[in-house]
């Protein structure tokens, strides 16, 4: 179960691009989970199975449309989270490279 307060984390301290990207990835992942929870909570067909008529069909159509929309946006947020994790990994890899390049012609 996701921590509902995690999306309220304070901003990371400046000067740590890797930490900042990972923090953003966590926030985006948390928002994606929230949207998934909303999608799961929406009434399914069987919740209104005892009703009938065009109003019931219209309600179910509208709810299904929002379910699809939020499902799509949840997937988009998951894609963003993966992008941010990847960017953080790349940034970490760049930072871990040797800071001094070998001098030209310095070697015997």
């Amino acid at each position, binding site marked *: 179960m996701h921590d509902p307060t995690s*999306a*309220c984390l304070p*901003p990371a301290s400046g000067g740590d691009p890797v930490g900042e990207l990972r923090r*953003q990835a966590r*926030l*985006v992942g948390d*928002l994606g989970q*929230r*949207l998934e*929870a*909303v999608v799961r*909570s*929406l*009434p399914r067909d069987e*919740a*209104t199975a*005892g*009703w009938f008529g065009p*109003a019931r069909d219209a*309600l179910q159509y*509208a*709810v299904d*449309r*929002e379910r699809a*929309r*939020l499902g*799509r*946006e949840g997937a*988009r*947020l998951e*894609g*963003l989270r993966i*992008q*941010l994790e990847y*960017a953080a990994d790349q940034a970490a890899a760049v930072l871990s490279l040797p800071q001094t390049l070998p001098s030209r012609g310095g070697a015997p």
Partner: protein
Amino acid sequence: MTARISVGLGAGVATDELDRVGRVLHTAAQNCHEVAVRIPPLRTGASVGRDADLWEVQGAVRQSIEQFDALARALRTAAALYDTAEQTAARTLETVASQLAAAAGLLLSRLGIVLLPGLLAAAGRVALVWGLVPLAQREAVVAAVGHGVDRLLPALSEPALLETLRVMLSLADDAALGTVGVPPVLVGLLGETGLGLFGIDTAALAVAGLAALSGASGVDPVRIDRAGSDLRRGGETRAIEPPGSLADRVGRIPEAATPIVIERYTMPDGTPHVEVYISGTDAHAPLGGEQPWDMASNVAIIAGEESSSVQAVRLALAAAGVTAGTSIVFTGYSQGGAIATLLAESGDYRTTGLVTVGAPSGAFPVRGDYPAIVIEHREDLVPVLSGIRRDTTAVVVRGDAFPDGPPPGGVLAAHELERYRRTASTADAHVSATLSAAVESLPRPALAGERSAYTATRMARPPS
């Protein structure tokens, strides 16, 4: 399989379902809002592509919020409108149906006058032929008819048929007025949908009058006695905890042998409070005999008369020291539910609650400023007998008597008190703001009280 429960105000529309789905959508809108407000800080400008994606997510989530809010509003409005609109529509349909019934009655009575000589002649021939049929074949015909009736009886537990019967019973008086020549338009004005001068109570009054002519009166005086063997102290009294749930209340309804149970409590503020439980009809009681909880009392109640059973409850309440200022909750089953409704609405008591199960009380309005809960089974014939439910502020709970399929035999199986206790238990667990509000509004004594049971005996009216 669990029993399906629906809760509605007044006419019995399942407005709690509309409310429930509306609440789910409202919560979905709130949760989406939580997501939407957290997206802008994530657009840092570090990546144009990611920022654009976040824009789109935010826009889409906001669209969903608007949709959920609109749907939740629509459902709330529908729930509110259902209670008034359905009653209005039902009343309009009933007016039209009442005029049609009167027209049919008028037509049949006229046809009857024309066809009567022929019908009498035909009946005479049938009787003659019947007398000529050998005994063995006559018995075979009777057995076949009986078999056909046995096959028809289970249909009387079909909810759709029972709803139709409810309407037809409400129209019986209109057809009768038409039969005696009252014009259909006038019937609409005089009947339940118009001035209310004629209704199902009029038809029941006619039945009660016929029963009285045959010596079975449902309004004869009664005597009550405290149940129990300790006569020196005027019967037994024992300590009892206050009722804790709907199922608990239904479980306290007595058998017809001791049809009245009264529990006396003291409320936290020191004022007295009384719970009265009233039993259903004694199915084995002879019509108009010593047992006041019989069919004669049933008919008298539906006719709006002070039946022997109603008199008995009044006497028991007086014996228990109930005054016009005593807080009182009426709980009744079947005939007891009808008595409970009548007394709760009589204005003679300070009613603080009403709970009925399987009661033929549709013809009695419930307009008081107290929580009222009516529990009915969709397959139960008895509540149908009082016709269309009208003019009530009660919370109507309709449940399935047979969640696992109907049992074999027994037309009135859906009317059994034990099945109603189970349905009340399901209602206790049912999530419904309307029902919960009504249950929470019932008085809650803090301490244990005293329970007394009463028997009742009908006394034959001395010949005048």
